[in-house]
């Protein structure tokens, strides 16, 4: 098997060049998809039978919740790559993804609470999904706090990788135990209305805004990673040249 | 980045004194050699094979005494040595007592180490050099806190080990009076300038 592509990813310079080429495309895709998906969803999609217009928050809530979970998965994969193949770029990805994931988690919790008030009559209930998301937020906080606490950059990245992996092993266990706990304490009074019953002009904008969120996430992650790569490789000659070029362009 | 462009080969019978000002990376170099740290770039070979591939081989051949030597204040000198030996190469109680006597601690076998002076605690750690030690010794500041006589004894012991075909890598600020034939010095401070 040809592994050269894999090793190329280990080179910060190669990553910086390639990501620089993709970034405009991703950014444009994110803006277009988000604009179409959100405008369609928030303004033009038909109102829901029971929830009327309040359901429209799912066009923000659902993509954010999706992304918050995918982001932890990405961090776990980056953790494996970093620990097994000692690839520096995976470290960078892991640490830079954590704050974005935490924000998305926060957005999904807040939007869920706003939706909960008209639907359930309360901002917060100890529902299994809500509780799992809250715990996920705490897991993100843990990774961010550990990364900030360790001053040595390499050690911080490796420690975060270990923690993200331990967290990833635990997430399914936490999820199942929370569901078990929820059924134990209260019968499932509230369920999110079935997605299958949604009509095409409701779920199509949802799909588009989910894709838009993914592109947005990728754009922000790449931008953060590029900045971090410049910071880490600040002694390398190509970085000095690049920084000179960027600052020259601004003058 | 502490040092770059360092190329070094060590053979049996040699003693390498790593010198240099504070912060020049003496301890880091030693920790890299022991496998406690991983180099950012470059590699370390043991008999031609990468160190990371043969941790067991290194563990069997190497004795590491760091600045903090792994001596527990709550345990007695004898218990400390017994555990460290069990961890690396098992030794009998008589051997341990003989080793403690060799570093001038006869009569202190049953005393908890926190009641010993800093120099005596250092001697407890150094007693491992008398307990059927492996060929490669890596010692970080072994002379710290030792008195004049202790320093002289240790210097002689290190030189004897090298002359018998062992290999010693150590850091110290102190200039050695008793040098073996294979003595070399590596000054990390000069290299940087």
């Amino acid at each position: 098997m040809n592994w050269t592509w894999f090793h190329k990813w280990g080179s910060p310079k190669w990553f910086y060049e390639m990501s620089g080429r993709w970034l405009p495309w991703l950014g444009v895709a994110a803006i277009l998809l988000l604009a179409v998906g959100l405008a369609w969803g928030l303004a033009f999609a038909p109102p829901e039978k029971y929830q009327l217009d309040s359901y429209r928050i799912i066009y923000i809530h659902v993509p954010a919740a999706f992304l918050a979970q995918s982001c932890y998965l990405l961090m776990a994969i980056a953790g494996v790559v970093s620990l097994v193949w000692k690839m520096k770029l995976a470290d960078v990805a892991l640490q830079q993804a954590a704050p974005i994931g935490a924000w998305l988690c926060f957005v999904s919790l807040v939007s869920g609470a706003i939706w909960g008030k008209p639907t359930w009559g309360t901002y917060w209930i100890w529902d299994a999904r809500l509780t799992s998301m809250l715990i996920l937020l705490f897991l993100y906080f843990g990774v961010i706090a550990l990364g900030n606490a360790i001053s040595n950059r390499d050690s911080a990245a490796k420690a975060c990788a270990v923690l993200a992996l331990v967290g990833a092993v635990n997430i399914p266990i936490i999820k199942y135990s929370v569901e078990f706990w929820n059924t134990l304490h209260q019968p499932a009074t509230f369920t999110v209305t079935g997605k299958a019953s949604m009509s095409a002009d409701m779920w199509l904008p949802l799909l588009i805004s989910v894709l838009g969120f993914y592109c947005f996430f990728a754009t922000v992650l790449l931008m953060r990673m590029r900045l971090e790569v410049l910071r880490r490789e600040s002694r390398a000659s190509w970085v000095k040249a690049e920084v000179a070029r960027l600052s020259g362009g601004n003058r | 980045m502490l040092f770059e462009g360092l190329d070094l080969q060590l053979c049996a019978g040699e003693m390498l004194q790593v010198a240099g000002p504070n912060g020049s990376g003496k301890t880091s170099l030693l920790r890299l050699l022991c496998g406690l740290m991983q180099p950012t770039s470059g590699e370390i070979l043991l008999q031609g094979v990468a160190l990371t591939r043969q941790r067991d081989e290194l563990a069997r051949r190497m004795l590491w005494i760091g600045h903090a030597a792994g001596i527990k204040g709550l345990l007695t000198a004898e218990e400390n040595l017994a555990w460290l030996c069990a961890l690396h190469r098992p030794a009998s109680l008589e051997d341990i007592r003989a080793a403690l006597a060799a570093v001038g601690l006869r009569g202190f076998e049953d005393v908890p180490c926190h009641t010993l002076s800093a120099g005596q605690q250092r001697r407890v750690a150094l007693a491992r050099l008398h307990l059927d030690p492996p060929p490669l010794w890596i010692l970080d500041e072994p002379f710290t806190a030792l008195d004049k006589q202790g320093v002289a004894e240790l210097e002689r012991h290190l030189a004897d080990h090298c002359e018998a075909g062992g290999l010693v890598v150590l850091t110290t600020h102190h200039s050695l009076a008793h040098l073996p034939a294979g003595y070399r010095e590596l000054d990390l401070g000069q290299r940087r300038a």
Partner: protein
Amino acid sequence: MSNVFTLLLVREARLLFRRPAELANPLVFFAVVIALFPLAVGPESQQLRNLSPGLLWVAALLAVLLSLDGLFRSDFEDGSLEQWVVSPHPLSLLVLAKVVAHWLFSGLALVLLSPLLALMLGLPAHCVPVLLVSLLLGTPVLSLLGAVGAALTVGLKRGGLLLALLILPLYIPVLILGTGALQASLQGLPAAGQLLWMASLTALAVTLAPFAIAAGLKISIGE
């Protein structure tokens, strides 16, 4: 290899018993926290009885967590951990022995103390066996997971609060299963299901956590 395991247990036992106050601290903490609750929620016995599964488990969880903060600190500072890393023995085995020793002398004491506090909270006597079994199975998981956090934060000057932040979310399944078992037995239902789940968590933690602990310690030492 198993010889080193036993010798390490003996060494840890010696160290712990030469400073017995440290063994007593988590136990006293456990008892004090339990005593705080009746003062906070009122002495009404029915309410305390219903809350007791949660109170006992939360207090036990915090006591274990606090006792773990210093688990590797002295070994880290005096260079013992470096000796473990450069030894020919697998680090994961050595840390497992360390955690087992810690659990035997502090976790087990906590388990043994718990029936007394449970009865003070008004938990019926027929629930005590379930409490004991759930704590017996659950506290090793708490110790092992907490040791992962302790290993990652051992090089930090103030790791205590960070350790709690890292580890408490991971304790949730144990908390849910432990209190679930107790609730069930309080309502006269069988608790075997929760206890078996807890046992599988214990098995999982014993097999996987030592590797994570060893990885964490190597990172902390290599810094």
